[in-house]
């Protein structure tokens, strides 16, 4: 039934496994490890800002900020989603594994290699890359501008190149698997929304990463081949340094052509999986399944043509700027559809407030705040003021930090029983929730306030400017303390995760009484997922409280009950 037989030895079972479930868990654990590093860096940032003791020098601070951003986006959140996708997609669509298990394993190990290279860059002369996670040249192009732009930056480029390779391999797998490996009856419009989220995100990633690869390659040539794609003659200490006459803005275009879709690559699956959690804990079908899918497709499409909103103050042609602004704020429309559908999914709910549900509800709130913040930055004139202030930092942390983290937490608590056959502790889960969600939201909402006050990001010491005195600086210490709570609370999660994986209460096959295919498999699913026969899908993914049927839920794989359900169309 599978190309690869069930593994025998320890190595082939847990380390170089071809099984999508093991690779998924490997990704999640790997991302948790990198997450610990990145969260530690976040606390270092906050300590420097709140109690600027003499421990960090500016070069340390900038390297820490840069690596925190890079690690969080590419080495924590992205691989967490790779992990969830790997684990869930085949189970969700009724497949025995990914289309290309070997590619899958390679993709994970290349990610590990990339992580090691990124971490090693701290040990390089000059320290890790320090030019920001956006790595704008000329700053990132030459050591003479910034010590971290030496070897640290070279390793950064290398690590990113490997990460892109790994992510592309994973993406190819996701795409083929979703398109071709669906079980009988699983039409596209019967797929759970989570799978839709991954599908759109994967297409975006495959299209958006190559330009970043091009940019990274050109930057590498500029640094080590003497070319001047992005570099421009400069005067340093009265010395004219000939670097040519490149166009620095070109890098920004290429970077943001990836950078903006990348945001959606990590946010869309997170938002989509909320529908699934909500449906299971409200015992209601997700509201607006099809409209949500179309909205999703619109968001994906629009996200490819709005990258210029990161460049309003670069001196771009004013008409181009206007275009980017007009196009950007259109995105709020499909996003609002998804938001309204999320809220409406709770309508007349029969609530079960388990931990995953709490996280899912908090994520809706975070989407609200994060979404409207985007409007301030997408509108061209207000962005003139907010660009590169803490408003931006607060905004993107709400979207790609809080929405993703809270929603991934919801996902982990929700699918943990499937992964390990054990329940996570509800008590600890709730404690974790109450310590994490409000503090995280508060941290990043307060950063918006500092942005309203004009506080500039990536600044080692904000007290240099007198306009930061008063309102702005009065928030710095509270933010730091809240951040410590938010990060510290993850210890509870870690304990809960690893302890429950071994000692948790047995969960059984379908503890949440949910409807999608993965719950048909035993927990944890065996090699090949579904026993001898693959399940056959008879209906859409969220048939909770079906009409005219005396049943709480009609699972996708259950044969039709006596009374016809509302969705009896024959699979295309």
């Amino acid at each position: 039934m599978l190309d690869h037989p069930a593994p025998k030895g320890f190595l082939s079972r847990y380390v170089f496994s071809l099984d999508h479930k093991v690779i998924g868990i490997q990704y999640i654990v790997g991302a948790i490890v990198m997450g610990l590093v990145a969260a530690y860096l976040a606390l270092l940032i906050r300590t420097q800002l709140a109690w600027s003791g003499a421990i960090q020098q500016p070069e340390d601070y900038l390297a820490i900020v840069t690596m925190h951003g890079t690690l969080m986006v590419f080495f924590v959140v992205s691989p967490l989603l790779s992990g969830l996708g790997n684990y869930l997609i085949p189970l969700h669509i009724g497949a025995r594994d990914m289309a290309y298990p070997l590619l899958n394993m390679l993709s994970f190990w290349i990610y590990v290699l990339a992580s090691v290279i990124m971490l090693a860059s701290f040990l390089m002369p000059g320290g890790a890359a320090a030019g920001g996670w956006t790595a704008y040249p000329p700053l990132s192009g030459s050591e003479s501008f910034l010590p971290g732009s030496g070897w640290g930056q070279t390793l950064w480029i290398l690590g990113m190149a490997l990460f892109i390779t790994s992510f592309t391999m994973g993406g190819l797998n996701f795409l083929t698997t979703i398109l071709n490996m669906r079980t009988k009856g699983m039409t596209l419009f019967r797929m759970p929304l989570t799978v839709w989220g991954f599908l759109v995100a994967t297409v975006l990633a495959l299209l958006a990463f190559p330009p970043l690869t091009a940019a990274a390659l050109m930057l590498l040539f500029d640094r080590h081949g003497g070319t001047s794609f992005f570099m421009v003659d400069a005067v340093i200490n009265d010395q004219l340094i000939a670097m040519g006459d490149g166009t620095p803005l070109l890098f920004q275009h290429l970077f943001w052509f990836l950078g903006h879709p990348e945001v959606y690559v990590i946010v869309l699956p997170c938002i989509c999986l909320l529908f699934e959690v909500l449906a299971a804990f409200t015992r209601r079908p997700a509201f607006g399944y099809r409209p949500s899918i179309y909205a999703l497709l619109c968001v994906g499409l629009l996200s490819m043509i709005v990258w210029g909103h990161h460049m309003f103050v670069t001196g771009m042609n004013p008409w181009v700027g206007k275009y980017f602004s007009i196009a950007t704020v259109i995105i709020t429309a499909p996003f609002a559809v998804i938001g309204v559908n999320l809220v409406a999914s709770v309508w007349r709910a029969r609530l079960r407030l388990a931990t995953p549900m709490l996280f899912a509800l908090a994520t809706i709130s975070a989407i609200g705040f994060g979404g409207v913040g985007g409007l301030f930055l997408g509108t061209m004139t207000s962005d003139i003021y907010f660009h590169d202030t803490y408003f931006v930092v607060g905004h993107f942390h709400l979207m790609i930090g809080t929405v993703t983290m809270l929603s991934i937490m919801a996902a982990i608590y929700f699918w943990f029983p499937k992964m390990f056959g054990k329940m996570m502790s509800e008590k600890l889960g709730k404690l974790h929730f109450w310590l994490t969600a409000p503090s995280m939201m508060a941290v990043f909402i307060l950063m918006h306030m500092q942005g309203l006050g004009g506080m500039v990001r990536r600044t080692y010491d904000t007290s240099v400017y007198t306009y930061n005195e008063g309102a702005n600086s009065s928030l710095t210490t509270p933010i730091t303390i809240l951040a410590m709570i938010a990060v510290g609370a993850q210890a509870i999660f870690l304990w809960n995760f690893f302890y429950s994986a071994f000692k948790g209460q047995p969960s059984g096959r379908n503890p949440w009484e949910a409807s999608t295919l993965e719950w048909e498999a035993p927990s944890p699913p065996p090699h090949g997922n579904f026993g001898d026969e693959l399940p056959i899908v008879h209906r859409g993914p969220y048939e909770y409280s079906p009409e005219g049927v005396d049943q709480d839920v009609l699972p996708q794989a259950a044969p039709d009950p006596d009374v016809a359900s509302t969705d009896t169309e024959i699979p295309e």
Partner: protein
Amino acid sequence: MSTTGIAAPVRAQNRRVLVAALVATVVMLFTAFAAAYLEHQGAARAANKWSPVALPGVVWINTAILAFSSVLAEVFRQSRRRGLLWGAMGLGLVFLGGQVFAWLELRRSGVYLPTNSYASFFYILTIVHAAHIALALVALATAARRPRIASLCVGFWHFLGVVWIYVLFILKGL
């Protein structure tokens, strides 16, 4: 448990999606380079600094070789005569050698990677393309033994030929 593996039609479909997605990423990659090239050219022309260098003549011979290689590969695809495939791959190798020759030729005439932005683009585009050709040669080599993937590999080979024309178009036509 039965051990039939993924059904053959699904497998074929998988391969098609995989190659289509690969083609899309390569297209995006070279589109990015083309955009970069245009941007640079515009800026440099505005400053009167745009100075394209004459491409070494061997580039045109290489083009012919690659085209002929595609023809051989196509005949192989239809007739499945392996000798043709080896011929196509041999020509692919000759193409790579020819590209190396072109780089050396440019060097001899004093045009280095950093000489000017046209030269930089020439080198980066040809190097990236050559890297793809090298990988595709590996794919073609596997096609000899696995007839099922032969068509796709040959298709990808044609595609890289088209990309080469595109590269030439960027460098000469834009």
